[in-house]
């Protein structure tokens, strides 16, 4: 990454692993549980958050010196909500099909704590370019976890990936199902996401002991 200084590059790379918003900062868990039953929804959500967090961080950063501190949370909320509604309306007019896929996520994006968390923790104290990189980095870190969780939940729960059967037909008993394998219905429901996220956190912390908090 010759384009970015080492410090700037870290803004993007850190949240992907050692400062991941979901596994380390434990933000955005709610949406990670809600929509990871299938891979497609995970990808859509990851892209939406990438956009909103990237742009939102820049807007907040530009406004950081004039936002009254007493109402800063409300101002942040308004910025996210406005961004999301603008995107939603434009899509409805020009890409109706896509907008229907996204409709469910609108509410989840506005209330995603990663967004508010990064506004509050980073964009209010840093310049627009750095804030942009921070937003992109955190959204990618969030997206990576979402996609990993979505991958396992859809594969083990429904035997499909992106809606395409990969393990055979569970009703006609072909492919893997011929050997007596069954889909695990538990993977479809939200608690399964918590367990998958838990396993990711476990793996990550046992590989890098520095991440383990003092008890």
């Amino acid at each position: 990454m010759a384009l970015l200084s080492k410090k700037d590059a870290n803004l993007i790379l850190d949240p992907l692993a050692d400062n991941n918003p979901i596994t380390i900062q434990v933000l955005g868990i709610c949406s990670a549980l809600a929509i990871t039953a299938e891979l497609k929804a995970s990808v859509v959500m990851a892209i939406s958050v990438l956009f909103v967090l990237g742009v939102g961080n820049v807007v907040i950063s530009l406004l950081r010196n004039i936002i009254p501190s007493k109402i800063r949370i409300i101002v942040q909320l308004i910025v996210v909500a406005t961004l999301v509604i603008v995107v939603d309306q434009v899509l409805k007019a020009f890409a109706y099909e896509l907008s229907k896929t996204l409709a469910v996520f609108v509410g989840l994006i506005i209330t995603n704590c990663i967004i508010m968390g990064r506004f509050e923790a980073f964009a209010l104290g840093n310049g627009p370019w750095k804030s942009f990189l921070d937003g992109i980095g955190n959204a990618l870190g969030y997206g990576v976890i979402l996609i990993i969780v979505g991958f396992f939940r859809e594969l083990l729960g429904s035997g499909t990936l992106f809606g395409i059967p990969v393990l055979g037909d569970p009703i006609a008993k072909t492919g893997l199902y011929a050997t007596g394998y069954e889909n695990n219905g538990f993977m479809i429901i939200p608690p399964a996401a918590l367990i998958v996220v838990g396993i990711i956190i476990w793996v990550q912390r046992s590989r890098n002991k520095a991440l383990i908090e003092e008890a």
Partner: protein
Amino acid sequence: MAVNTDKNTYTVTFATLMVIIVGSLLAFLASGLRPRIDENERFEKQQNILYAMGVNQNEGEGSVSFIPTNIVEEEFSKYIKQQLVVVGSEAKEKEESYLIDMKKQLNIIKNGDEAELPLFIGEKDGKKYYIIPMYGKGLWDAIWGFISLDENMVVQGVVFDHKGETPGLGANIKLRYFMDDFVGESVLDGNRYAGIAVVKGNNDPLNNDKEDNEVDALAGATITGNGVTAMIKETLKLYKPYLETIRTK
């Protein structure tokens, strides 16, 4: 900048300005895009109605393919022979009744007044399809759709949609494998309009029994499934007086 951002007057001014700017931006955007959005919604309704009577571009098994928006208007006027409104057991023709908002009509009925319930008669290969709009409640928000029946009260096709059901769970009501199960099911149980129930622990997961008034439920989407069951039942109750007049079985 030498403004004191902690002062109350500053806070109030900032808040007021922000509300005005954001508010007018959104209002401007919404009214500017309204015509396009309305048109998209109209096409969508036509696509759904046609889909319920089996006019679509589905290929093999798998995904749902509606008639493309650029030809949907033409196809709609080709296949939909009559647009009616049903009041009690009477049906009268009414232009563009497909634009009637089912939710508003249900509210009128709730208030004890007489509503105009839309119904469409489609014709394909000499066969008549009676297409009825439905509106109900899922887990998080509204669900709706269309169901098409023949004179024997056998389902010819359904289409469902939803506002905010959980992706991967309740949202799957709009997928082929769920909607296709309804085709061929009778909504009658003897002389009773029993509808079609979405049930778990169904003994008939392959859906071979078309007289049991049941289809297999979606895993992890009990409440959305119950919503579908209730929606079909409620709709049939409203249209029963009219359906009795066309029923031949």
